[in-house]
């Protein structure tokens, strides 16, 4: 188990939690908790990414935009 001192030392060297976690062989969220004493999914801790796998949240879809262009050209261009 990594100690707080180990985590702090690596953080002080400029590494972020992901890098610290990789070096110590633990999960980033655990590194965060060891360093701060707070869980990474606490309301006040903006560190959700540290304890969860990569989030899937795309906000754009090029296929939709292409389809919209086609429809607009077909349905609206001739309008007055």
């Amino acid at each position: 188990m990594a100690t707080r001192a180990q985590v702090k030392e690596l953080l002080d060297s400029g590494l972020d939690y992901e890098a610290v976690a990789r070096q110590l062989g633990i999960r980033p969220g655990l590194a965060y908790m060891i360093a701060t004493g707070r869980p990474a999914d606490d309301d006040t801790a903006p560190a959700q990414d540290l304890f969860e796998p990569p989030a899937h949240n795309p906000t754009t879809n090029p296929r939709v935009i292409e389809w919209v262009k086609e429809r607009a050209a077909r349905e609206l261009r001739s309008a007055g």
Partner: protein
Amino acid sequence: MNLRVPSPGELPLVRQLRGADRLGRGAAAESRWSKELRARTATADRTVKSVCPYCAVGCAQNIFVKDGEIVQIEGDPDAPHSRGRLCPKGSATRQLTTGSSRERHVLHRRPGASDWERLDLETAMDMIADRVVRDRRRGWEEEEDGDLLHRTMGIAALGGATLDNEENYLIKKLLTALGVIQIENQARVCHSSTVVGLGTSFGRGASSTLPGDLQNSDLIVLEGSNMAEAHPVAYQWVVEAKARGATVIHVDPHYSRTSALADEFVPLRAGTDIAFLGGIINHVLTTESDFREYVLAYTNASTIVGERFEDAGAEGLFSGYEEATMSYDPRSWQYEGAFVGAAAGQRDQEGNVDRLQEDELGGPGGRGEIRRDETLRHPRCVWQILRRHYAAYTPEMVERVCGVPQDVFAKVCRLFVENSGRERTTAFVHGVGWTQHTIGSQYIRAASILQLLLGNMGRPGGGVMAMRGHASIQGSSDIPTLFDTLPGYIPMPHAHGHDDLADFIAADSPARGFWGNMDDYVVSLLKAWWGRAATAENDYCFEYLPRLTGSHSTYDTTMAMVEGKVKGFFLFGQNPAVGSANTRMQRLGMSKLDWLVVRDFSLIESATWWKDGPEIESGEMRTADIDTEVFFLPAAAHTEKEGTFTNTQRMLQWHHKAVDPRDDQRSDLWFTYHLGRKVRERLADSGDRNDRPILDLTWDYPTEGEIEEPLADAVLAEINGWNADGEMLSAYTELKADGSTSCGCWIYCGCYAEGVNQTARRKPASEQNWTGGEWAWAWPANRRILYNRASADPSGKPWSERKKLVWWDEGKGEWVGHDTPDFEAGKPPDYVPPEGATGPDALRGDEPFIMQADGRGWLFAPAGVADGPLPTHYEPQDSPVRNLLHEHQRDPARQLYEHEWNRYHPDPDEPGAEVFPFAATTYRLTEHFTAGGMSRWTPYLAELQPEFFCEVSPELAAERGLEHAGWATIVGARGAVEARVMVTERMTPLWVDGRVVHQIGMPYHWGPNGLARGDSMNELSSMALDPSSHIQEVKALSVDIRPGRRPRGPGRTVLVEEYRRRAGITAATGMG
């Protein structure tokens, strides 16, 4: 797991004390076994952002997926509204979506058959498409008395509040193009009266605020809502407010966990809230403790009403009542010298309004000069009318009617007044405890009047927070799978007077306010639906829309089914066999259908009534005699599709697909799209002009994957709209009526602005203010608190520093603040419309209710509400108490249905009334969901609340010999149910007009199928409706209760008939 006895040195506490980790934060907390454990979240491949599919709080979820399987679902801690929390239902969503209770294959019941057969999906879809084409024609109605109808009455649909907005959109679009008008969903039976009440009062029929803003309230009054149990995650904001010093009042017939956390619990008799609220209004008026500057500037208090208006008075009838039709002609309620149409609400009045315009004002809505008396002394100004109307609602009368002691009532009044004004604000929170009454719309109106008088609208910590019950019931109201509206609350055209687009716009679009731009919204919608075919020359295909001829609500459709007029019926995630009022009538109606399509997770009661419903057991129906063909198509869960839910705060949140649906499970988007495709294929060669609407429909959505799932974000893009250059529109102000823009729902315009799915935005709460404006997207225009122009005084300055929200920045020349201003950004406070201005330009810079034709909040509603311009106390349809405030016992305009299975109870003064001496009310439990389809089949939830029960006071238990945990039978004129008895002081006997009235509480989630089984309380309720919204009354009714279980088989019907005989019930009972 290998278990062995650890040595003393291995015991955790010993290790902790001996080692370096004495606080037990690290190594000392681990054992050899726990060291090997890995959280499912830690081993997942990916996290998919989603939204809880249960209630309308819309808690954000993280779905953890490993190797294509969902391994965990948790709350998303980044979400501003839910802050990582989930209630028991939300916590059970993994079991809901991955459990074995879900059906995976199509099932088919042939007419008269005794059981299901398997059917392949493609064949089922072909059979359904064939039946749609056939029965659309069989039920076709082209015209009536020379008026265009262009519709079919052969097909109906019900359900949509559990579906995505995109699914509702396609359902409404397809069915409307087919000419189907009998389209309804859960919103009708849950909050349709909220839409009328809020819409007529303020201009929009949705919650004015968000639960997260309750933290800014000084007083929160929860009435008609058990928020702590029905919306527990949102209740955190009430608790937050309390921690900041707010006072919390809970007014309810039933003590609950909401009451337990409140500062004041005020028990009142079910069905008397208007008397209670009217009493507070009277207190505010007589003590002149209103927020006078706000009232004068922002409400219609000073507006003078026409001479012909007569108040309801002691009789309880306003002017314009027509006894023969049990309805009002609202013309006499109009302002003097002017006509204003309603921004929302009851559109059936529009026929009358048309006549009014033609007869008296010579022009469309909003014309004429509104006259005001700023001194509020004119006898016909709204202020004086209000004073006279509520003068009888004294504290003494509140006590006699509601059972609320005068000292308690006085304290409530004092708290209201003390916590309103420049420096302080009060919020109302309500749920279906207010809406489901024959006068439900007026309940909401009463609260709206109070909030306007006290200046609590549009301000932080103020407003009316309508707690809605399904994940997207707000969305299914906005993009309505409802009979009377088109997307964005555009009214469906009526057969009378709406012959062409110009007539339609002229009749329904007022000259002032943002509804004055209705032509932009309508034409853009018609372009979205009929694309190239919609041209200026053909009125943009306006003729393609089917026409209404009155109410076609779900209960009217039930009666049409009973009469054999409806041939085919779609159920999209709704369960009327136990969830709608008078479930016997629902099942009787379905037994007359030719075919029924049920789309759901499990075999709900609405899918199986033909083989195991109560009427089969009683012998009133025989399976072999029922010719209804039934298709059961298993639905995909929210984790298996993508799309948006609109939650109770008008916020659209995108949920991504985590895994593929299995076997025959499909989304409703898939079902609707492919059904439409198949119907169009069948009609492709048709030369019938009535088939043009379906053939010209824009229906070329891109699909993906092996099953050809339509892209939900393409549908959302169509809803948002685009211009002729294919650029996504950013705001509804960009819409045009010249055919150059397309938009499927004008109030959602902007949700896909700049080609970005704004509804998928997930900026953490910690990085933005309390309104959460960068989390997802809220309609309209991403405004989180509606009417927020009213948070500033007429000159544009905040009423107080403590309650500032938006204000006029003179330097910038625009409105700025903590929220998107609900006002034209550059319109200064001192703007005065030029002569002849129309639409938004005709509203002044100090008129904050921009959807209203007069720019003001309506204390008095001159239009839009069917049963009077002011809320008036009437007793429920079935009540053990006579009306002490007015001669009319019940709402004189309520909507009733005469049928031998839908009999009503006698008046309280009539012989036989004593047979049903108790008041009953209904409510929701935390662990179950609506009619049970998403909870009674879920083992965790079924185990938590395994049985139907009733709550009775110790006094009633003693009076009727009821034993705690024993059985009771509850009986009414429609049916009898059995329930486990909970004897509890949570039900308070009330002293009402010199006698004790006992109340019985019942949750309404049960039915005979699933893991947690029990009778449905809707066996007891009647079809008696609010005339404005067509919502049923299930929150207050009269019953009898007796110890023991109900009879089995035919004995149940015999028992009900015996009660009817004793009460002398006939077809005329309760109809007056």
